[in-house]
């Protein structure tokens, strides 16, 4: 028997208990909150006026009337960045489209099969996966975008559903497998041996959701996971064994690894670079023009990554997210104004990112401070860059309210 989803959702609330919404109490609560805000706003304004008067008087007494009133001290100074690259300076970058694949769901329930590129290896191959919902089966192949040659890998175990790339190198492919009921897995393919290994990880209610957000491989060969919560809580597990362990020391920070270095940034904009047992603070605070969000639990989190030997940081600001590039010596050498950056990939080629409602794609090269517009728009999350290639997805020709049509494309950068 087939259950209709709409009917099931409505029936699920049929036994709604009585009561539960006290509109009079809500009105009283709302009035109380409005009054409290007015009082706080008035107190804040009064405090500002008093502080301003005191500052003017103090300034007059010490330096005379011509001296401007200094702002009140507010923590460390903003990060100074050598150069600002404006968005309107972006030059078009003609892309050489090499290969694409497409997922088309005309029926929202029964069309569940996917065919997509999930990432790029650091030796320049695209990882293509085909997921078949009936039987829950995933096939994986490596595609050479230049020649179109496809090498199908041995099938992973049955029951492996849709997979997500964590680290794709010439030696090894590491994926996450999201499953039902909080049993997830790290799936690894040894390219030399041609064999899969799978490490199942049981998770709990909260951690189960962690596979939905950020995942990265540390140089300690552990997979680090942060959940859907914007507060960036981190857990890690080995690639082949071991339970999930809470990484409390990383909570609230974005993290990236590069050979023998680990870099982190927190919501306030403090950037740390750890190398050989020493820690260098590259920034104590976000750049000028970037106001750290008052409530970090509702703002887009910061991001960080290495582009070659340069460090790239996306500071979280109320104005958006601000990209800053640091050179080998730790100096902030170039930045872009804050924008609503929604998706990004940081690789040797630079920072590939999507901006704004139209999801315009840009590539920022930290080593040259050059900004290029790719003239493309992103459909859903999934940007990758490696080995002079970019991978993104766009709406297909049938895409509509009722139809999901996504085209995944790999192109070479000029």
């Amino acid at each position: 028997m087939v259950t209709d989803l709409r009917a099931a959702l409505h029936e699920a609330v049929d036994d709604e208990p009585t009561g539960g919404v006290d509109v009079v109490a809500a009105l009283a609560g709302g009035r109380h909150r409005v009054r409290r805000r007015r009082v706080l706003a008035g107190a804040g304004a009064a405090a500002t006026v008093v502080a301003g008067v005191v500052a003017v008087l103090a300034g007059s007494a010490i330096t005379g009337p011509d001296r401007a009133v200094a702002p009140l001290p507010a923590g460390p100074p903003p990060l100074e960045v050598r150069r600002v690259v404006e968005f309107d300076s972006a030059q078009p970058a003609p892309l050489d489209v090499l290969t694409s694949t497409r997922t088309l769901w005309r029926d929202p329930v029964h069309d569940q099969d996917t065919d997509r590129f999930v990432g790029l290896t650091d030796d320049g191959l695209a990882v293509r996966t085909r997921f078949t919902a009936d039987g829950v089966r995933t096939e994986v192949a490596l595609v050479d975008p230049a020649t179109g040659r496809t090498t199908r890998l041995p099938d992973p175990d049955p029951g492996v559903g849709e997979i997500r790339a964590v680290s794709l190198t010439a030696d090894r492919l590491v994926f996450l497998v999201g499953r039902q009921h909080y049993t997830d897995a790290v799936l690894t393919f040894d390219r030399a041996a041609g064999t899969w290994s799978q490490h199942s990880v049981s998770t709990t209610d909260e951690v189960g959701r962690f596979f939905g957000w950020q995942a990265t491989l540390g140089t300690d060969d552990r997979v680090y996971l942060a959940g859907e919560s914007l507060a960036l809580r981190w857990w890690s597990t080995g690639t082949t064994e071991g339970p999930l362990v809470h990484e409390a020391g990383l909570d609230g920070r974005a993290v990236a690894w590069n050979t023998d270095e680990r870099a982190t940034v927190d919501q306030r904009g403090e950037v740390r670079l750890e190398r050989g047992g020493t820690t260098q603070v590259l920034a104590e605070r976000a750049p000028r023009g970037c106001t750290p969000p008052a409530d970090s639990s509702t703002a887009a989190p910061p991001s960080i990554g290495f582009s070659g030997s340069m460090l790239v940081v996306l500071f979280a600001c109320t104005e958006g997210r601000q990209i800053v590039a640091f050179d080998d010596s730790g100096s902030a050498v170039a930045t872009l104004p804050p924008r609503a950056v929604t998706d990004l990939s940081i690789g040797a080629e630079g920072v590939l990112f999507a901006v704004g409602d139209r999801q315009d794609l840009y590539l920022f090269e930290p080593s040259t401070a050059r900004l290029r517009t790719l003239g493309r728009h992103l459909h859903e999350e999934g940007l990758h860059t490696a080995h002079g290639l970019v991978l993104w997805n766009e709406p297909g020709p049938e895409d509509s309210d009722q139809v999901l049509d996504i085209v995944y494309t790999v192109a070479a950068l000029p």
Partner: protein
Amino acid sequence: MARRDGDDFLDFAAAMGPRMRRTAFLLCGDWDRAGDIVQESLIRLYVAWPRLEPGPGMSSYARRTVVHVHADWARKRSSQEVVTDVLPQQQVDDATAGIPERVVLMNALAALPERQRACVVLRYYEDLGVAEVATLLGCREGTVKSQTARGIGALRRAYQRAGGDLGVDDRGPREEPAW
């Protein structure tokens, strides 16, 4: 303006509150918590009341507030949980075997990531369009479609494990009182 009066707010809240509570229940799976979510949502709605234009936008604002309050509280709840250093590594049994259909649905909904669950509830309980859900959740339309489809796929697999199947009746939404 009369609409700004407390009586108008009470009329609006009385008309919309029950449906907001049902939506909140589908998002959080607990009637008591759903009631709390609606209380907080109505308080926020009252604070915003002078800025709201009469019309469908008020309903959209109310829905958005329910989703946001639920998400805020879910985050806060998770951050207040006692964290253990090591999680037990044990197989979790399939909770959907041999249990009533409603329990299958609620368990499967609860197992979805927050955004997939919100997409399914807003698309198939609230019967909102893709663009409206995208605006409400602050994401791309493509994301709404793929998240919705993935959520439905997970629900369908849960039904199949329990010996049933799940479909979507495309004859259109059920009749519901306006709110």
